[in-house]
């Protein structure tokens, strides 16, 4: 055992099988105290299975896993008492009030009511739900329910919070409000582990992340490191009137760019200087319907690593 003293999660060869299906295929990672650590990958990459093992609600099928220095197989309840969990589905008691949901959830940790009342007041504020305190959960908006689920996960004052797809299904405004709340947690020194298939979310929030695909970790680093390692600084995106025109542009692509990716609906040119690339394209008479230069993102990293886009 003997994981580093500052590692809150330590995994070596961690594996999860369901029958003959291998959901998580021998992954190694470490999460350090105070950081925001992300699992980025498409649906079915094994992110949720990994989170459930870390949350001690799914036994590992193989490998080594230590959480807060403890063994999930032996100390599940003790570990769970010290972490917060925000599952993909909100799982709230919708027929109860916002307030009841806080108190009840706190009771599941064996905490006394006076302490819970105090914390629930603070968390109502944190979730910006003070006005809805006595309302039933059922009619609340998706964003409010999500904030409530996140706030509820803090009722036991956890050292680490696991967030599985925290903003999936929310509108942009609700997402930004949630991100703001998560930054707040980070500032308070809470370690966050999140899964996402949104590259912008991973880039905004994560100090460090691993890219997962088909149960394996394909690379790890900070968003910036990953981008520098696998792709160029800029990307020129071209859309053509039809597929034939895109095919015609392919031979030129590698002359004007470091590398290219041909997707079904567009051509991506990786380059260190977008303007120069576009000028070179114009010289060679390549005429796209739309043409734009953008910063490289984690989406491009994923594409370079797996040959697929995140939403495929």
């Amino acid at each position: 055992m003997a994981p580093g003293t500052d590692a809150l999660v330590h995994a070596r060869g961690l594996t999860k099988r369901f029958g003959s299906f291998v959901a998580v295929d021998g992954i190694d990672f470490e999460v350090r105290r105070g950081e925001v650590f992300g699992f980025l990958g498409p649906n079915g990459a094994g992110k949720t299975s990994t989170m459930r093992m870390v949350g001690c609600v799914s036994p590992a099928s193989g490998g080594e896993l230590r959480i807060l220095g403890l063994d999930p197989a032996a100390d599940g309840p003790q570990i769970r008492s010290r972490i917060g969990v925000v599952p993909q589905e909100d799982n709230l008691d919708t027929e109860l009030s916002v307030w009841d949901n806080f108190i009840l959830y706190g009771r599941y940790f064996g905490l006394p009511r006076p302490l819970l009342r105090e914390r629930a007041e603070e968390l109502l504020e944190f979730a910006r739900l003070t006005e809805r305190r006595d309302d039933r959960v059922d009619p609340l908006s998706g964003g409010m329910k999500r904030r409530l689920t996140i706030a509820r996960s803090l009722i036991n004052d956890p050292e680490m919070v696991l967030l599985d797809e925290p903003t999936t299904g929310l509108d942009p405004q609700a997402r930004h409000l949630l991100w703001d709340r998560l930054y707040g947690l980070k500032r308070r020194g809470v370690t966050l582990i999140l899964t996402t298939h949104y590259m912008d979310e991973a880039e905004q929030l994560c100090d460090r992340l691993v890219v997962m695909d088909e149960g394996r970790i394909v690379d790890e680093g900070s968003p910036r490191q990953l981008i520098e390692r696998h792709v160029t600084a800029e990307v020129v995106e071209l859309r053509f009137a039809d597929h034939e025109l895109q095919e015609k542009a392919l031979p030129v692509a590698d002359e004007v760019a470091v590398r290219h990716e041909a997707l079904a609906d567009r051509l991506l040119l990786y380059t260190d200087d977008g303007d120069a690339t576009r000028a070179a394209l114009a010289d060679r008479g390549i005429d796209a319907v739309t043409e734009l230069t953008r910063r490289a993102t984690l989406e491009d990293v994923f594409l370079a690593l797996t040959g697929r886009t995140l939403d495929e």
Partner: protein
Amino acid sequence: MSALVTRALERELLVYVRTWRGYAFSSLVQPLLFLGAMGIGLGGLVEQGAGGLEYVAFVTPGLLAASALMTAGAESLWPVMGGVKWMGQFNSMVATAMTPGDVYGGLVLAAAARALVSAVAFLAVAAPLGGTTSWWAPLAVVPPVLLAATTCAVLAAFSVAQQDDQKFPLVMRLGIIPLFLFSGTFFPIDQLPDALEAGVWLSPLWHAVEPARDLTTGSPGPGTLLHLLVLVGITAAALPVGVRNFTRRLTP
């Protein structure tokens, strides 16, 4: 199961208190409607009574136990699927210090607690109508409480292992309803064909109706205790299966 099983009970009771109107109908008003229709309406026609008792006194312990079976039965089917699948609250419960066994144990305790409330209320209404004839009657809440726990222990263990609610109506129609009708609830079991009369031993409801009737109309004897022990035995056999099934489903 850990000490936190009481916290799972707390959840069930909180939901019960917050949504009591729905429960009040199914677990109290309904048995009282039956008592009015069968005990008083039909009973008026049954001049010879049943089992040596006025009909209303015969049917009161039957309804007392049978409504515990009906209520606990329904509560251990769809709400369990809701907790593990449709709404997922059980999943959020096992993400805390609680275990799957605590969630299950809480359901069993809650079924017993709700049955206690319903049984007290039902007896309080039935007694002045001639439904009880013995000073032992207050103790007749014990059989329905135990039966509710047994029913929940067995059915919740079954429900949690299902992928959907497809089989639930069958459980009600082919399991609960026949038990409801043929367990000495509305007529003495010696009215049944001989072959079926022996089969009544297999009915958990009968093991609650008989001791309840001893207590509302006479006094407890060794038979009373034996029936209750059968219920305890079924519950004790179901509990490990339930803990295993809840653990498999909630922490796969």
